[in-house]
């Protein structure tokens, strides 16, 4: 029997337990006007005829520096990405630090330089922040929170309600690179081929799609904690429609796959920090893949699945590489603690 009185590590995994904590404890406790149980990456806040998007995220990744990135880069890119998949262009960002006493200042400098660089590259200004120091033992090194406000793209019409049977599901690149790079570093595994996090801003990807296809882009998400599996599980549940993806269509990073096999992890539920999942109208699917593939970070973009019919128990199913079928289930949530 699961201990229901105390927070478990799995509550932070972005899977089932996280969803339950939010829906069952956090939202009811906060009270006030409730959004209908659909959790999105950013909130849309209308103000005087203009629509802003607003989001916040805290970063607890361990180790602080990993191949392909660090907590500074992640803290900026991750929040930029949350706004981007909502169809917003980031305008301004806050950055708050909780630092453990004894933390090396040179390291702090390095991490913040990385954050600053990432912000400049993404075209967002870090305009305000906060710094707290806690005593040794009270937190593990460094926690960064970034919040950001952005302006909605004029053509953006995104949401679960826009997803239709027959829509195409697109993925901008191979799965699990971030999770595997972090886990490998954490577990002291090394590979002869480069295994680096895909940590990057995907703002240009979402903007390209919206610029070119506007309302034909129905839904976007960045598959962070919980990976593609979590995004698809949300989609199936929120739209009431089954989803089918094809294993053979999913782009693969061989080093990430090898790491996953060694660590006993499933790439479908592994975190990504520089990937886009887009659900678009069937007729624009192929061109949308081409548009994505023009960007370096989406060179292997692919059409990986379709949205099916509505049903009582919508499942996410995968046609495997040998032609079998299996369910893709919502990850439980504790496979990979402290991944982002």
């Amino acid at each position, binding site marked *: 029997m699961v201990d229901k009185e105390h927070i478990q590590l799995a509550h932070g995994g972005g899977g089932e337990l996280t969803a339950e904590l939010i829906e069952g404890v956090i939202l009811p406790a906060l009270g006030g006007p409730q959004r209908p149980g659909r959790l999105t990456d950013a909130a849309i806040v209308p103000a005087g005829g203009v629509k802003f998007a607003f989001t916040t995220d805290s970063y607890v990744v361990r180790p602080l520096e990993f191949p392909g990135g660090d907590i500074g880069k992640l803290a900026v890119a991750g929040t930029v990405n949350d706004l981007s998949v909502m169809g917003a262009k980031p305008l301004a960002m806050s950055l708050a630090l909780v630092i453990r006493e004894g933390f090396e200042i040179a390291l702090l400098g390095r991490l913040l330089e990385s954050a600053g660089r990432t912000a400049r590259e993404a075209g967002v200004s870090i305009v305000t922040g906060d710094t707290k120091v806690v005593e040794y033992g009270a937190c593990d090194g460094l926690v960064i929170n970034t919040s950001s406000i952005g302006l909605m793209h004029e053509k953006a019409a995104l949401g679960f309600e826009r997803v239709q049977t027959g829509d195409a599901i697109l993925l901008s690149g191979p799965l699990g690179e971030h999770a595997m790079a972090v886990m490998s570093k954490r577990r002291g595994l090394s590979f002869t081929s480069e295994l680096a996090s895909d940590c990057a801003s995907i703002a240009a990807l979402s903007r390209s799609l919206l610029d070119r296809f506007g309302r034909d882009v129905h839904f976007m998400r960045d598959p962070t904690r919980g990976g593609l599996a979590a995004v698809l599980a949300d989609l199936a549940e929120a739209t009431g429609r089954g989803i089918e993806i094809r294993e053979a269509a999913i782009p693969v990073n061989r080093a990430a796959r090898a790491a996953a096999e060694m660590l006993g992890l499933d790439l479908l539920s592994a975190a990504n920090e520089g990937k886009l999942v887009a659900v678009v109208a069937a007729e624009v699917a192929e061109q949308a893949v081409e548009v994505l593939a023009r960007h370096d970070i989406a060179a292997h973009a692919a059409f990986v699945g379709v949205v099916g019919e509505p049903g009582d128990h919508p499942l996410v199913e995968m046609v495997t590489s040998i032609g079998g079928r*299996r369910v893709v289930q919502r990850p439980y949530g504790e496979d990979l603690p402290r991944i982002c």
Partner: protein
Amino acid sequence: MEVCGTHTMAIARSGLKGLLPSWLELISGPGCPVCVTDASYLDQAMHLAGRVEAPVIATYGDMVRVPGRNGSLAEARARGASVEVVYSASKAVELAANHPDRQVVFLAVGFETTAPGTAMALARARRERLANFSVLVAHKLILPAMRALLAAGDVRIDGFLCPGHVSVIIGYGAYADLARDFHRPCVVAGFDPPQILAGVSAILDQLAAGEATAGSVYPSASAEGNPTAMKLLDEVFVPADATWRGIGVIPASGLVLREAWREFDAETRFDLPKIESHDPVGCRCGEVIRGLCRPWDCGLFGRRCTPRDAVGPCMVSSEGACSAAYKYDPARRFSRQ
């Protein structure tokens, strides 16, 4: 029957069963190390974790969520116990080497694949005179279990798909006696779908020809196995009677530390009590691992027992038959709604 948790998972993840003809059934046997470990072992580990001045419990990730009488190691960790997930025994002994001020107990479970790793970790502990490392041993040997299943005769098994990694160690020749004595083909296969199908196909060929020998389609497994690993096992461990969950005691089916290595035995070092454990009411894990009960025939499957709120190890373990059926098989998902 396949007797390897990795096979169970590979078959489920590839959706292979749905592609097989109706006259061929692949059943799961006692191949998941966590699933076959007696409940009392986990309760002993929990007892250790809960002590004042508790040692660090170093364990494979799979053990962490198995529910014991007083919850799981993960829950103990959430309440402050020192539980470290390690991917290998060498990481566990490294933990001990890096933290001389803490006792580290490694939960040594698994078949012949992981036992050599435990032996090597102990060799390092001896070499470096690490007084703070010990192991709680529950290693098992697969062949005695296969024999016990056939001898019990209550499950129809026409052939065995044999575990790839275990066979790299013990060699596929190890199955020759069983194949001959019980007239069942035994074929070692690797873990991707084409390998599994090749193994099944080889078994069918033997059945069609009325033959029953031990063979392999897995290039990494030779007939004699890995003599260095086997020698190391023999230096450190000796076979002993062991309790398999749901099956009971199988003679000479487990490994215990030899007298010369007994100083590293956690049970002795920490004076651990023998704990009587019972399977939870309604849990049919024991029958599932013998192939007597299909996961979806258990009354708890999908209702009271799901991967996120599991009653028994077959559902909790990432290599358990129930977990595989629930997570990956679309036909079974709603058989219990």
